[in-house]
């Protein structure tokens, strides 16, 4: 086992612009060992316990402990069947492109992860809910599943055990809200993607009313490594409380935009400077969204913060998906927030009134300010909306997510907003 392997389990097999490993190559580097180990040496409960001990937290953005989530699945002879496991591959949070990398780069890893995770929860059927634009990922996953079936690693009586799993790829057709787990389930049932009330959580009442685990692609990809090397090894990969590694991404005017697997808890500045290469020539850093479009802005004073769930929360934002979007001094912050709120308004599913009507109104006001038609009162109206559309006021987290970049922009870039209104003009436009 070399050092690189130890440091970056999720991306160790991934070389950009090269075909992914086929099943033979994947097995040569230790692939499907975790599945063999789980099926032959461990009970489903033991797999669950190991994942619990590893302190793996959901990489879809909310950071919910994965082992705990699985423990809500009814187990044993009385459990309702069929049970389902769904890999959430709807990835559509602006600034986020890690799941695509994982699926295109190492499809067998996700497949093995889904089989092991299905074993742990005793699921009968596993679906990948994949956004339709990810054609290359779809092609490679299909190929991988075919290879796995031929080798008895998928289907009936896997590796001669009593465990069987059906596996399917389901492709979607756009709309951000499909990534919200209950909307995803509704969408998989062939309907408009409208979220459902939680509780009940999908673990007890999910797809077609049956127990269902929905996990993000990156979350699942951790599982085989945890089973192979143990919870303690996994925790030691990290530089903080939360176990493992994290795939961080950067986009915006940095020298080398991209994604890297690094120890959980790597400080923001290190990612920006050492990996992304700092700002492009002629651009100065002003702020960033640490974990996709639906997270609060952070600024210069926060750059020493370790990127993990709790530390980023402590400075007033969220690690979210770990897809960092960097704002530079040549871009108008009002225009940036307008772009974000237009996106959120467009992507509201329309089910509840505060979100359906509130988000377009927010975008409308921001547009007026950006075009030099704003009033000082508008800032208060915007602030009011960050309350009205905050947590607990809407049916799902879409609207509260939309308010995060807005509320923090009003705090950190207030002077920019006021200047637009005072001068009735955007200072970035000539």
């Amino acid at each position, binding site marked *: 086992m070399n050092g690189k392997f130890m440091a970056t389990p999720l991306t160790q097999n991934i070389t950009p612009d090269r075909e992914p490993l086929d099943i033979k190559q994947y097995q040569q580097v230790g692939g499907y060992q975790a599945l063999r180990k789980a099926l032959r040496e461990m009970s489903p409960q033991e797999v669950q316990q190991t994942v619990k001990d590893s302190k793996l937290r959901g990489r879809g953005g909310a950071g919910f402990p994965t082992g705990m989530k699985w423990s809500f699945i009814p187990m044993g002879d009385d459990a309702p069947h069929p049970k389902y496991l769904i890999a959430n591959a709807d990835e559509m949070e602006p600034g986020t*492109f890690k799941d695509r990398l994982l699926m295109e780069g190492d499809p067998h890893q996700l497949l093995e992860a889904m089989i092991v995770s299905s074993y742990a929860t005793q699921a009968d059927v596993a679906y990948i809910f994949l956004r339709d*634009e990810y054609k290359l990922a779809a092609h490679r996953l299909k190929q991988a599943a075919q290879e796995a079936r031929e080798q008895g690693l998928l289907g009936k009586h896997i590796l001669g055990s009593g465990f069987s799993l059906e596996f399917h790829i389901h492709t979607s*057709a756009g*709309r951000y809200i499909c990534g919200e787990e209950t909307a995803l389930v509704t969408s998989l049932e062939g309907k408009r*993607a409208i979220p459902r009330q939680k509780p009940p959580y999908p673990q007890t009442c999910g797809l077609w009313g049956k127990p269902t685990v929905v996990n993000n692609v990156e979350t699942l990809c951790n599982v085989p490594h945890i089973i192979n090397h143990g919870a303690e090894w996994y925790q030691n990969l990290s530089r903080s409380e939360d176990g493992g590694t994290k795939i961080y991404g950067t986009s*915006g*005017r940095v020298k080398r935009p991209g994604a890297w697997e690094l120890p959980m808890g790597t400080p923001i500045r290190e990612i920006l400077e050492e990996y992304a290469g700092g700002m492009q020539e002629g651009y100065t850093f002003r702020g960033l969204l640490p974990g996709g*479009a639906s997270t609060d802005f952070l600024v210069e004073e926060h750059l020493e913060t370790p990127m993990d769930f709790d530390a980023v929360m402590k400075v007033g934002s969220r690690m979210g998906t770990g897809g960092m979007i960097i704002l530079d001094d040549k871009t108008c912050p009002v225009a940036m927030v307008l772009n974000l709120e237009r*996106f959120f308004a467009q992507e509201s599913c329309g089910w509840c009134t505060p979100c359906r009507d509130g988000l377009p109104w927010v975008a409308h006001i921001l547009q007026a300010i950006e075009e030099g038609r704003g009033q000082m009162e508008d800032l208060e109206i915007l602030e009011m909306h960050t309350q009205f559309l905050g947590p607990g006021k809407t049916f799902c987290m879409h609207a509260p997510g939309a308010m995060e970049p807005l509320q923090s922009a009003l705090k950190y870039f207030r002077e920019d907003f006021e200047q637009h209104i005072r001068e009735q003009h955007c200072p970035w436009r000539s």
Partner: protein
Amino acid sequence: LEEEENLLSAEVRQQIDHWIAKYPQEQKQSAVIPALHIVQAANGGYLTNELLDEVAEYLQMPPISVYEVATFYSMFELKPVGRHKLSVCTNISCQLCGSDQVVAHLRKRLGIGFGETTPDRRFTIKEVECLGACGGAPMMMVGQTYHENLTPEKIDQILEALK
């Protein structure tokens, strides 16, 4: 006679059946989104009410439920589109890296804006949300192919190669 009246070709129906098989027997409706993709592709890139009705009948769904789906999801087209669909991402990472210039260049070259089709039916430009290629911003998808780190020169080359 039944065969003749059916707007869905045997091949299309066969492709839909492949998807129906992925869901429990009584849950054919789950195949509606993949089915609409298949029917749309077979019909030159867009859906008509007649086709939606056929899909409804084939999946034993009320037509209104199919309309709901077809109008909700952003990848379904309900009016004719050009041979090449240029899906331009204008979300934040792309905007920070110059998607406005991409849009302006396309507008200038093709003389059309978002949601419009060139008179020769060659191109349609569509504004889309993040396609998960933010590290390669600004980007667009042409048909099913991603093009990243766009510049005016690169866009010209892409357009030239499309007949």
